[in-house]
């Protein structure tokens, strides 16, 4: 699943294994004592409505460029070791994994901060769009101003 040009990121339709990804982050990496992971999944409700599925669209090429830039910024700001970002596209159902961010570091504070920073920036800068299907029909999700405010705080 790994993008050979950008080994730290992967945009894929297939599911991923948290255990496999963490094993890769930890392999031959005894200098890093901390591993922080974030996994985002399809929730059964969004703003009060019952969701049946999500369809993720993205902008190939720009997606990779934006994620690589976000990871580069995180590495400039914190002392982190390895990073992996996976984002799925296509149709996803309740409970399905959407996104994974894994960060290792010598000391835990860096991995926590860098992981949350990557997610916050991904949310406002990476060109992905969610279309939600619920009983009342299908609609594109609106961006949340809270996400914009959260990214601006870093």
């Amino acid at each position, binding site marked *: 699943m790994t993008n050979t040009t950008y080994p730290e990121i992967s945009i894929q339709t297939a599911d991923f294994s948290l255990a496999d990804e963490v094993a890769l982050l930890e392999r031959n990496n005894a200098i890093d004592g901390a591993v922080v992971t974030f996994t985002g999944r399809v929730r059964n409700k969004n703003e009060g409505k019952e969701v049946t599925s999500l369809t993720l669209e993205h902008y190939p090429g720009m997606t990779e460029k934006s994620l690589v830039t976000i990871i580069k910024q995180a590495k400039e700001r914190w002392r982190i070791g390895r990073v992996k970002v996976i984002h799925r596209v296509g149709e996803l159902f309740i409970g399905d994994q959407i996104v994974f961010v894994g960060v290792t570091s010598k000391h835990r504070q860096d991995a926590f901060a860098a992981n949350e920073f990557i997610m916050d920036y991904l949310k406002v800068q990476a*060109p992905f*769009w*969610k279309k939600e299907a619920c009983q009342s029909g299908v609609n594109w999700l609106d961006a949340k101003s809270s996400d914009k405010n959260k990214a601006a705080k870093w």
Partner: protein
Amino acid sequence: MIKVVFFAALREQLNCSQLSLNSENLVTVADLKKQLASKDEKWQKVFANNTLLSAVNHDMVSSEQTIKSGDEVAFFPPVTGG
């Protein structure tokens, strides 16, 4: 020529994912938006939305960004991934 691409709700509203334009008379992204908006009422309405985002060659830019022949310009709604 300039390649213009559209994504998500924008692509659906315009019923268009991609087009090519002659780059003459286009200096900035704002010029391009103006020209696209002049196509017809539907395009005018869509480009009146000031939350629209623009990217040139895969980098998010403001409307003041200059463009030139060979560029890929994208228009899309605020992103909602993650």
